[in-house]
């Protein structure tokens, strides 16, 4: 932008520092506390990883973590296939209707609570027994929308003439997809998958409403919610740190693979 006076530049730097402090101090506090021997925010009693050990011994948390992995992996796998096909379908279309655009955009903007109660009503009216499978079915809804959005962003700058060139050189539609289209959009597909995985791991509200009764289908965010309601416990700090590491790693990978997933 236009050149600025040193004073303006300095105040902009201050703004940036203040905002980053606001964004990162709460998170950093949790991470620091997770290594506090005493576990309480009142006093630092020494460095320890004992809360991570306690986490590993907590059966409820381990089973919730396993449930979360199952939900995230299966819903991501389904969403990657459906979302990629959807993106290819939309972007090869001659005309895109507004209704179609709205339909594929909707899962990303509908407030979670509305989708959650809609799915709850739907499943209970159809008398579908609820559990991990209903969470998976529900997570695919928004996951496929995000995957298709990431893949579509890549396809916008895709030179379709390479697929025609492939056909011209004798390749069938399937061979063209396998040898030309897929390798070229693969970074976006993987980025979309990582994004979907992260969203699914972190998703609480829809899982909470579609998990049904019983502890068997408790996911990690549901477990965290329950723990927080009981109050501050040192174990949550350790758990929070681990969950954040997973999300941040997946998102950073996704960003490196495909510039512009999280930020342009």
């Amino acid at each position, binding site marked *: 932008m236009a050149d600025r006076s040193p004073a303006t530049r300095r105040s902009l730097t201050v703004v940036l520092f203040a905002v980053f402090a606001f964004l990162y101090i709460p998170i950093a506090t949790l991470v620091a506390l997770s290594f506090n021997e005493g576990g309480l925010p009142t006093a630092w009693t020494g460095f320890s990883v004992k809360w991570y050990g306690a986490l590993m011994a907590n059966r409820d948390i381990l089973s919730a973590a396993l449930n979360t992995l199952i939900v995230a992996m299966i819903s991501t796998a389904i969403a990657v296939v459906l979302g990629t096909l959807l993106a290819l379908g939309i972007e090869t279309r001659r005309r895109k209707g507004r209704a179609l655009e709205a339909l594929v955009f909707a899962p990303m903007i509908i407030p979670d609570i509305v989708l959650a109660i809609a799915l709850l009503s739907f499943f209970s009216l159809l008398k579908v027994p609820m559990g991990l499978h209903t969470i998976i079915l529900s997570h695919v809804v928004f996951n496929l929308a995000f995957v298709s959005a990431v893949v579509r962003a890549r396809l916008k700058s895709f030179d379709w003439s390479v697929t025609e*060139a492939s056909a*011209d050189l004798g*390749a069938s539609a399937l061979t063209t997809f396998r040898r030309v289209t897929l390798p070229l959009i693969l970074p976006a597909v993987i980025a979309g998958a990582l994004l979907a995985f992260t969203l699914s791991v972190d998703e609480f509200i829809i899982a909470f409403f579609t998990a049904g009764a019983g502890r068997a289908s408790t996911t990690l965010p549901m477990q965290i919610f329950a723990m927080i309601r009981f109050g501050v416990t040192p174990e949550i700090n350790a758990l929070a740190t681990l969950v954040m590491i997973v999300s941040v790693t997946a998102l950073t990978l996704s960003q490196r693979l495909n510039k512009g997933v999280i930020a342009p």
Partner: protein
Amino acid sequence: MTALLSIDGVTRRFGAVTAVDRLSLEIVENEFFALLGASGSGKTTLLRMLAGFETPDAGAIRLDGADISRMPPNRRPVNLMFQSYALFPHMTVEGNIAYGLEMEHLPRSEIGARVGEIMEITELSPMAKRKPDQLSGGQRQRVALARALVKRPRLLLLDEPLGALDKKLRAAMQLELKRLQHEVGITFIVVTHDQEEALVMADRVAILKDGRLLQCGTPHEVYEHPANRFAADFIGVMNFIEEGGRTLAIRPERIHLFPDRADRTVEGRVTARAYHGLDLQLHVATPLSPKPLLVRLTANAADRRPVAEGDTVTLGWNEADTRQFND
């Protein structure tokens, strides 16, 4: 001679627009053929129908006597060199060129030999392991050409093959393409909007307008004997003189400043003068037409008869050099 390719009354409509309208053409083996037209003339649609990316609404396209108009692109012995080149960005030069042969499931050794051979001919061997984004525009163009040629198609289609190159490289590549075509002995059909390119490269030129064929002939025929006013105007530069309900057309280089050698003369005033090195171009306002006549003098002739802006000159030409149109 029987035709290699015969296009028979082919029509392609997009909604209300008729891109190609009952077009018929015959192209013989080993010919270098140019489809010449402005954008929207239907030349690209015709090319895409030959390649198999569009299907004619009516008419037939026959190759070696067999109707191929509904055959999918990957089964046609026809290859297209794309305007954008459409190189596979994730494959090396070698990988790009081998791709089409792999689709024919040829033995590895044969693929290697044929790829090597075509890279020699197109002088690409040193870049075999590079990716397309590490190549210059001219090199990319040669990869696209090699990739299509290596399949030894019955017919090679080239969509604006030189469009992306700069002017100097273009002139060199025009001759290069001609040389290659002789060397590999494959029939070429080039689509271009550049009439000069068409005249230089092609054995025969077809001029298209609004999806119809205006004229088809050798470069000499279409330049010297344009079939109608549009063709005359489109190819090269032409002066038009309206006279008694008819139109006379004369090329600028057929007008000179030596009235004693002409059977038609007119006086005019020089309104502009542009020196081009090889020739001198004059705009001469005459009573014959509202627009000044364009006159092109060779450097030699200009030296013998110096002209300045504002001078009054007498232009002369021979009736035999004019064309007459009634439309």
